[in-house]
């Protein structure tokens, strides 16, 4: 489903990604973790072409994101993305947030878009908030709306970039619950997160990054059971003791 082949990326002289290679197959849930600044966000942004790469290839569902002439907008419409800071549109209601791309990109009628918005809002448990603005919702609610905004587009894969790290502790679970639910339904997911509980519960694989390189890429059991690299051991001991 997602094929990352020898990807390198630079910001000026600084190499953010170093020869990264990995795959995510259909219905797989892959967690990406690693210390701050290791390039996790950059990697996941490259997967839907929000950031260009200078070397290597990324293929999503058979389409080469990194090739010149690829219709990025059409491809992105099928790749859902959830951000650390939600990025709901503050000047629109929840309903408009959920309908905009359905109408403009998928050319759905207003009625169709609204009924899908209602369906997915219901799934994340926020039906009664459809007429509110994002500013009137709590962080956890905003993030659930953001997830619904991606789901209404019928994505073939969902990308998450630290979806819970901007949330107050008591709101983290309401968002993770939605994500666990999605994983169980067979959604293909690539999730940058430090929530190791979530990783253990639903991830098929864990990718560990350090200084722009993929240091470990193994099954969840192996990763937590016997991490190979010292960096991963170090990282795990710090994060699990919290």
């Amino acid at each position, binding site marked *: 489903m997602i094929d990352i082949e020898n990807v390198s990326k630079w910001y000026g002289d600084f190499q953010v990604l170093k020869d990264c290679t990995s795959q995510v197959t259909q219905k797989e849930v892959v967690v990406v973790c690693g210390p701050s600044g290791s390039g996790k966000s950059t990697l996941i942004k490259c997967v839907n072409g929000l950031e260009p790469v200078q070397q290597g290839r990324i293929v999503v569902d058979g389409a080469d994101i990194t090739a010149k002439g690829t219709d990025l907008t059409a491809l992105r419409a*099928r790749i859902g*993305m959830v951000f650390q800071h939600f990025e709901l549109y503050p*000047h629109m209601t929840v309903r408009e947030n959920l309908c905009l*791309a359905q109408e*403009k*990109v998928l050319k759905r009628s207003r009625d169709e878009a609204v009924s899908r918005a209602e369906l997915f809002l219901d799934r994340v448990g926020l039906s009664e908030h459809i007429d509110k603005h994002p500013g009137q919702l709590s962080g956890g609610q905003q993030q659930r709306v953001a997830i619904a*905004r*991606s789901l209404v587009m019928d994505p073939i894969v969902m990308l998450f970039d630290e979806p819970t790290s901007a949330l107050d502790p008591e709101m983290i679970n309401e968002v993770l619950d939605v994500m666990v639910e999605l994983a169980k339904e067979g959604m293909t997911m690539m999730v940058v997160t430090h929530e190791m509980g979530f990783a253990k519960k639903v991830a098929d694989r864990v990718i560990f990054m350090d200084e722009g390189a993929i240091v470990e890429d193994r099954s969840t059991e192996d990763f937590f059971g016997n991490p190979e690299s010292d960096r991963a051991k170090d990282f795990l001991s710090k994060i699990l003791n919290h």
Partner: protein
Amino acid sequence: MTDFDFGVIWTSLPFLWEGLQLSLWLTFLAVIGGIVLGTLLTLARLSGILPLALIAAGYVNLIRSVPLILVIFWFYFLVPLVLGRPVGSFYSALIAFVLFEAAYYSEIMRAGIQSVAKGQKFAGQSTGLGYWQIQRHIILPQAFRNMIPILVTQGIILFQDTSLVFVVSLRDFMTTSSIVARTEGRLVEMYVFAALVYFVICFTGSVLVKRMRDRMAT
């Protein structure tokens, strides 16, 4: 020194009102035109299409380095040359104001657009929206909301600047006041009155701006 006679103001009111109308009308049209053209200039500058961006940036920098009064002169003489017929000083002044203000509005707007978080663009892109759709539905509405107070402030400055149109013999409020002052020989009264009118209009405007700022801060 003669006694003050504010009666001349009363008798000249219709004439002065015509001048004020011209000032307000010119301000209004120039603000609208300036915002429209300024938005286009800004979009050109941020479009990432290099020739377009360079031309727009060159234009903005050129206009911002010459005095307004010069631009008004240029267009008074240039526009009839280009069109091959006179257009009247009102339209040439209006064109000058729109072209001049657009450069300033463009600067304000660029700051406004850059004030919208980069993540908003990413969010739009990640749902498959194109560049123009993102600008139209996501970035510009937020940028405008952030910018309204500065846009109104710029409008107030523009209103004061309309007094420059006397150089192309347009009868704005300042000009009509001067005419009354000289013909009636009532300089002090007329200029006090003119100052008062400018003050009331501009002060009302800035109170409005302050209100908006306070409302947005909460």
